[in-house]
């Protein structure tokens, strides 16, 4: 019979206490819901609802944004699932989770553009910069909180988990920002708004890697546990 080495057993015994298993990733995603709601309403409360709201209608303004925000929550859920050992996504799964949000943004953009085409004729860089910065900044609290949730699990690929949660946060933030920004011209939305989602994805990956690096330093892998000691195999 294989017996646990005494030193390993002693180290684990010294640190042992009962734990409560983490809730399922999808249940934990609901903890993000309050922040998602804040991200959805922030821009329209701080500034205003888009000027073409009457042309777009309730579904065009709020309906599409709520759908995009829900998609963002799902992507964060996928990130939290990725953070659990043995439940990580396949390459195809990751590609799908990264592609669906982009398709969502493109779809929402084209739908808005068709219903209410508003060109951005002047101040291209200024307006683009404001939309990019505002959207990316709105995503930051969601990225921070979701990263903490992910790091509390045990992501074996923190960059992947972080990229997914960053993308989900970016989607939620953009869902709120589009309620304020009435320029539906695809060139503006697919550059400034989508760039904010991409930026949020990169920030998510960096934050998750850093947080997991800190966890790794705390639980250093290379404190030898009786190197080569009697393994009873």
């Amino acid at each position, binding site marked *: 019979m294989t017996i*646990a080495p005494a030193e390993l057993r002693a180290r*684990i015994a010294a640190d042992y*206490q009962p734990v409560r298993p983490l809730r399922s990733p999808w249940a934990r995603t609901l903890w993000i819901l309050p922040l998602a709601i804040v991200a959805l309403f922030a821009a329209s409360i701080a500034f205003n609802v888009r000027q073409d709201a009457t042309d777009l209608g309730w579904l065009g303004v709020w309906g599409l944004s709520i759908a995009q925000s829900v998609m963002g929550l799902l992507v964060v859920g996928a990130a939290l699932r990725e953070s659990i050992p*043995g439940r990580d996504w396949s390459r195809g799964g990751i590609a799908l989770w990264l592609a669906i949000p982009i398709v969502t943004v493109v779809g929402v953009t084209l739908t808005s553009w068709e219903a209410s085409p508003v060109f951005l004729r002047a101040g291209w860089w200024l307006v683009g910069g404001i939309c990019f910065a505002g959207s990316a900044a709105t995503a930051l609290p969601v990225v921070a909180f979701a990263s903490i949730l992910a790091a509390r*699990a045990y992501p*074996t690929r923190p960059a992947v988990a972080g990229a997914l949660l960053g993308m989900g946060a970016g989607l939620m933030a953009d869902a709120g920002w589009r309620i304020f920004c009435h320029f539906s011209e695809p060139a503006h939305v697919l550059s400034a708004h989508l760039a904010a989602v991409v930026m949020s994805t990169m920030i998510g990956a960096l934050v998750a890697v850093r947080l997991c690096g800190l966890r790794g330093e705390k*639980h250093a*892998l*290379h404190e030898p546990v009786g190197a080569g*000691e009697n393994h009873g195999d």
Partner: protein
Amino acid sequence: MAEDHRLRELMREYQSGRFEAFDEIYASIAPAVRRYLLSQARDAAKADDLVQETFLQMHRARHTYDPSFPLMPWTMAIARHVWLMDRRTLSRRPWAPDDVAAMDLPVKAEAASFADRVEVRRALGKVAPARRAAVIQHHVLGFSFKEIAERAGIAETAAKLRSSRGMQQLRALLKGQDK
């Protein structure tokens, strides 16, 4: 199937406070974990170390195990992570072996003009350890002085000094062997 249920139950007990369940879990899955790590590391002693590290990480991540899923995929994901982290750590660790004779030294530049690799190795073994480390890291492994300084926790000028004094000592030793 019965084994899977037993392992899930053991892990549930381990999570909820029965420490003795650890021994049973270890006895049941350590051989499989070791086989996997041995197939990766191809070194029995290394695999044994990594098995222990895997169980340590399993203990630290025990709250992430959901007993409604099989235990082995969770365990193997942690084992794979431990293996990859070990590889990454080793590739980043500054390296200056004490056993210079065992090194496969690509003799280049100045050293190429000296007698032969064996003599260079022998002479390097006599150079003071801190200087030897700087010489090897700079002239053999190609690190910059800035990188050497960061790794050793010293100033860049000190790293340069160590390397140049190491080379001086090496030259002197090799000249001494020629005579």
